[in-house]
């Protein structure tokens, strides 16, 4: 007999699907709009049954004066962002959509943040609460609608970025931020080393920098905040260069966020080279320009984001050597996107006591290992 809260009729189907899958031992591929399907390891089970939340959608409540929005997991991200924009607010982590059908549930489960991440925070920093179905088909709520909430373990934040491994998100409560009063972008020609040094120097000052990127020998800085602060920063950093025209600036930052910028186009797969992949590196602050191990003398192309903390590599990269090199710098590497699956795991490996804890958590949430098996980690 279940003693969880009574499940709304519309979610009962999902709950039953989960229970049935538990009996059959059949995996479930949890998803929303499928826009992040490329991301993560392939599922361990070839015959996973789809569990799609895209029909479970709608904003449940939105209180601009509370800085909280609550939405069903299948709510399209475009719809949510439009509702926030109408009231002069936004999601602080500026998430990528990667497609029109992106849902807020998928956005939280994927845990991907956009250009604003270093200034404002990551996806999990804005999660206030969630409702989810666990591996027993039970409907559970963690967190709530208030930021100051330390009751119990922070399972709501744990679900962010878990790629569906622990449960099916059915509802999320998120903190929202006011849109900045003023915003200006500067594009300053400079080399990679100079850009990284500049980013480090500026980050230590109280400047209203909401995004910092480098590509094609140009450093791009977005300044957001009070008008007086933005204008002051433009004078201090701009070196007399005129700011980028607003529409062009928005276009640039969107092209980074959505990876539509030409840099991100994967070269076509060819028989002679290993499968081309877009690698994502996460690095500690103050990491020098990259000199990653090269394959066959080809230097990988680099795009820098997050003031240097996130860097993208294209071409000429061999996985194992890259991971070892990045780990030596205190960071980690993700094979973010490629044409074909490879034997290489997508994420940096886990081992030892950390992996043991992961296994036990997986068992606690999803005892029959139904949800997206293998996607977050080959063993989970």
């Amino acid at each position, binding site marked *: 007999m279940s003693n969880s*809260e009574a499940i709304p009729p519309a979610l009962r189907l999902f709950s039953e699907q989960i229970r049935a899958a538990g009996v059959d031992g059949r995996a479930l591929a949890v998803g929303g709009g499928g826009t992040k399907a490329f991301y993560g390891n392939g599922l361990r089970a070839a015959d996973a049954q789809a569990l799609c939340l895209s029909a479970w959608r709608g904003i449940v409540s939105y209180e601009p004066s509370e800085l909280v929005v609550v939405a069903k997991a299948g709510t399209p991200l475009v719809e949510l962002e439009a509702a926030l924009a109408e009231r002069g607010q936004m999601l602080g982590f500026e998430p990528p959509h990667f497609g029109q059908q992106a849902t807020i549930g998928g956005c939280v489960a994927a845990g991907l943040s956009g250009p604003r991440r270093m200034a404002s925070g990551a996806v999990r920093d804005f999660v206030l609460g969630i409702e989810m179905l666990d591996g027993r088909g039970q409907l559970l709520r963690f967190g709530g609608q208030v930021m100051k909430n330390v009751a119990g373990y922070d399972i709501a934040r744990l679900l962010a970025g878990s790629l569906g491994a622990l449960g099916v998100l059915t509802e999320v409560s998120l903190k929202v931020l006011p849109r900045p009063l003023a915003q200006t972008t500067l594009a300053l020609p400079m080399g990679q080393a100079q850009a990284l040094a500049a980013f480090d120097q500026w980050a230590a000052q109280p400047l209203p920098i909401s995004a910092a990127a480098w590509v094609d020998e140009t450093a791009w800085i977005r300044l957001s905040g009070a008008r007086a602060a933005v204008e002051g920063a433009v004078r201090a950093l701009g070196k007399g260069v005129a700011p980028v025209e607003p529409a062009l600036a928005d276009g640039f930052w969107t092209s980074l966020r959505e990876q539509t910028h030409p840099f991100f186009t994967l070269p076509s797969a060819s028989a002679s080279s290993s499968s081309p992949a877009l690698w994502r590196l996460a690095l500690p602050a103050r990491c020098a320009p990259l000199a990653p191990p090269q394959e066959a003398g080809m230097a990988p192309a680099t795009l820098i984001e997050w003031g240097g903390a996130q860097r993208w590599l294209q071409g000429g990269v061999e996985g194992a050597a890259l991971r070892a090199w990045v780990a030596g710098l205190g960071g980690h590497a993700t094979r973010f996107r490629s044409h074909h699956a490879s034997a290489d795991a997508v994420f940096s490996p886990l081992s030892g006591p950390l992996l043991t804890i992961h296994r036990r958590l997986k068992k606690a*949430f999803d005892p029959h290992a139904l949800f997206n098996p293998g996607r977050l980690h080959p063993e989970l």
Partner: protein
Amino acid sequence: MPAVIDPPSLTDRNTQREPSVAAPHSPLAAQLPIDAARQQDVVSALRAVLPAHCVLWREEETRPYECDGLSMYRQLPMVVVLPETETQVVAVLRRCRELGVPVVARGAGTGLSGGALPHAEGVLLGMAKFNRIVAIDPLARTATVQPGVRNLAISEAAAPHGLYYAPDPSSQVACSIGGNIAENSGGVHCLKYGLTVHNVLRARVVTIDGEVVELGGLAPDAPGLDLLALYVGSEGMLGVLTEATVKLVPKPALARVIMASFATVEAAGDAVSAIISAGIIPAGLEMIDRKGVAMVEPFAKAGYDLEAAAILLCESDGTPEEVAEEVAHMQAVFEGAGATRLAVSRSEPERLRFWAGRKNAFPAAGRVSPDYYCMDGTIPRKRLGEVLTAIEAMQERYGLRCANVFHAGDGNLHPLILFDANDRDELARADAFGVEILELCVAVGGTVTGEHGVGIEKINQMCSQFSRDELDLFLAVKHAFDPPGLLNPEKLIPTLHRCAEYGRMHVRGGHLPFADLPRF
């Protein structure tokens, strides 16, 4: 008391060994005695792995550890251990695991929910000797610190670089960063700068098995599950912290605070909503009610308006231009919201004076009452007026005064119930008054704890806030880190037995849990 029968349908997760009674479950209960024979076994085992001066067991040495900041709950620990190195921490945990001895970790002992209340059969693991600032990296804007380092000490060390550590609980002059991480502490500035969880990059933790794990990291988005987010706020129950790396932020050039008076608490609450609706995120936004003002003003002489029903302290920080723009905006909003009086700090000493009352609420309470009970709960901001009115009515019913100071910006309430602990009836009424406030917080859509943690204090209220399935999942998460259940047992998560005894079971959607349990 009805007999409680565990239904046979319970899953394995909830059939953990019911721990032997650890400590008083209520402020009125007596302390539990120490088993002297067992104590000597444990002392010998620990003295084999630690220098003698690190192991305390005589009552005069362990008495200082019998409570934390929630002094109405006290329990002598069996043994106090004060390690000096991580190797010693590992050895202690391994020994305790072997012997089945519970371990309660303690930072500075300033916690307000009894999270560091000792266990009568356990070790109190004091981390105060871990007080080194390992490194400050001003260009990377990080500080690597040991858990016993005081919160304010981090900012003091970062100050020469124009940086500081933002989370500022009112106890920051004394509280430890390890304790802050255990409780996910907030403070006045967390509305703008985040809670502890938003400001920690990495935690080095020793498990009950004596294994060292690194959670998070210096690079963003560590691979795997976000165990760092899970660890922050876990109240010493998942592992023992030996080192952490925290974020430092640039110190703003200038800060100004506005003191705004209002004729009613509703008007003050509406003004808070108006500030947020105007797109302003103040550096701090605090409210003090009339009783609170009357209590703190003679002590702090901050110039608070004794006539007002409630006053708001609203801070702006940034560059001088930013602050000028923002303060003008805030003033306009407050005027529009019917403020009866507005004052803006004109200098740094004046700004500190404006804050002095709010920050010294506890010592001020100590002047007007033998004891006080500081509550902590969070509610949606829009329910502020309603909740304060309800608390006013409760004061009549319980015959106890209650002043309210709180983080209005995020609805985190700190009612201060004034009473005399020597009067057992007042102690019982204060406890009951507190419980009723917490239940009200949950009823209006909030939570039983905004920042002080659950500890022992609110473990019963967890039965109201969560369903049994949710509590069982918490137990399973705990089990994933600590299978023998030896780290800070009987805190935070109530077992089924406890909820049934307490009588406040979670009824959601009209669905009564365990409907077949006999109830009288």
